């Protein structure tokens, strides 16, 4: 119950090398920055431009972590997350929402749909690390 401290393993960060992270965002700028910062943290990166594109990438190779935008054309982040969790093996990836939506209702529905973390934009190295440090790898 000491969730207020967010004390869940910073050591997981050191264990992240060669983990596959799928970055889903319709903004090329966001994908570029996320790739830069996450590569620096030792992750391997795959990119997708919308939810449907992301689902296809997941079916090709299931990532360990998904960094997920909310508002996207074709299929938004929440729809993607719900579909992903219904896929075979789709319960395994950690999903970190990464969005400009900051209200309680968005956070609640993200968590209800099976998100692990919620990162508010704009993000930087520090807040990205905090979000990744807060996840516990699923089985």
């Amino acid at each position, binding site marked *: 119950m000491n969730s207020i401290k967010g004390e869940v393993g910073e050591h997981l960060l050191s264990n992240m090398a060669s983990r596959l992270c799928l970055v889903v965002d319709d903004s090329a700028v966001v994908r570029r920055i996320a790739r830069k910062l996450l590569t620096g943290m030792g992750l391997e990166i795959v990119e997708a431009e919308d939810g449907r594109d992301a689902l296809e990438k997941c079916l090709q190779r299931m990532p360990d972590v998904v960094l997920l935008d909310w508002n996207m054309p074709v299929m938004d982040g929440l729809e993607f997350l719900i579909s992903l969790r219904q896929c075979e093996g789709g319960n395994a990836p950690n999903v970190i929402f990464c969005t*400009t939506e900051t209200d*309680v209702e968005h956070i609640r529905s993200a968590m209800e749909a099976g998100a692990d973390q919620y990162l508010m934009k*704009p993000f930087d*190295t520090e807040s990205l690390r905090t979000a990744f440090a807060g996840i516990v790898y699923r089985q």
Partner: protein
Amino acid sequence: MSMSLDGVVEAGFLADRAMTTMQQLGVPASPANFTIWFEYHAGLIPNLQRTIDVIISNNAGFSEDRLKDLYTTFFSPAKEAQAVRATSLLALKTLRDIVAVANLAGADALDASVGAHRFGDALVDLASGDMGASLGKLIELIEDLVQRSKTMAGRSEFVSLRMRASADRIEALEHDLENAIRDAAIDGLTGVANRKSFDSAIRRMAGDAMNSGDDLALLMIDIDDFKRVNDTWGHPVGDSVIRHLAKTVQQTVRGEDHVARYGGEEFVVILPRTCGRAAVAVAENIRKSLARDPVVLVLTPHMTPITVSIGVACYEPGDSLASWIGRTDAALYQAKREGRNRVELNQG
């Protein structure tokens, strides 16, 4: 006995933790807030706990409206649910009235009294006891009546009057709420946004700039030698100088730019889709219009003209907001060092 004692001790422990956490986070100790933090520590509502953890880990802050949202989302029935419940109660009450009228005056009076033609047949059956039927059929009929009364409830003049009254009340409440939110976001002395409002605006605007890839600039404006103004002419004059600067800045920038009082004699402006030389030009406009405008001189004829120094820096997506603000501050101090009454651009 011991179980209930444990329960009391546990509740006291949770209450203690709730109070401590509220203090740490600067959350006002209202009953609604206490409910939120008590349940947070009790951990019986996992999504409440996770939502709060998200807000904490993102440093998003617990503003009054966010606390209100937390309470509404997790503890009070949603607006919609409330509306449905109110309508159902209204429908049931209407139904009871109709049955009472039917009992008193007979089914014939019904149409005239409530103007509900569609009710006619079913109620005639019910009131005349002509059902000759099983309990199941009676329930079916009542359900049907509730359905019909819901449809009718919207039409009856009495009901619509009451609806209008509560709509007015809701509107008044929303108006109060808007005012409260606005007051909490506005600087009392100058009428521009306050620091709290700036903190959420810069986050929102940088988030949008990160998504769109558009430019975003920040100006930090500081009155030169303000301490001397206060010391020589007194605080009321100091206050009018601050108000005058706020007015000048607001008249110089565009409507979409966000002007805020950052502290004492310091102002900030966030400029969307602007950077580099364009941002410096905006800063120069502010500096020059202040030099041109004689209002301050009329106020105290012997006072040296008021000037400002301005620091400018552009947002780099992926950079932290703290570092962006820090770069702007550094540019401001460079402007001060190089003689004041000037604009400096941070070179990244």
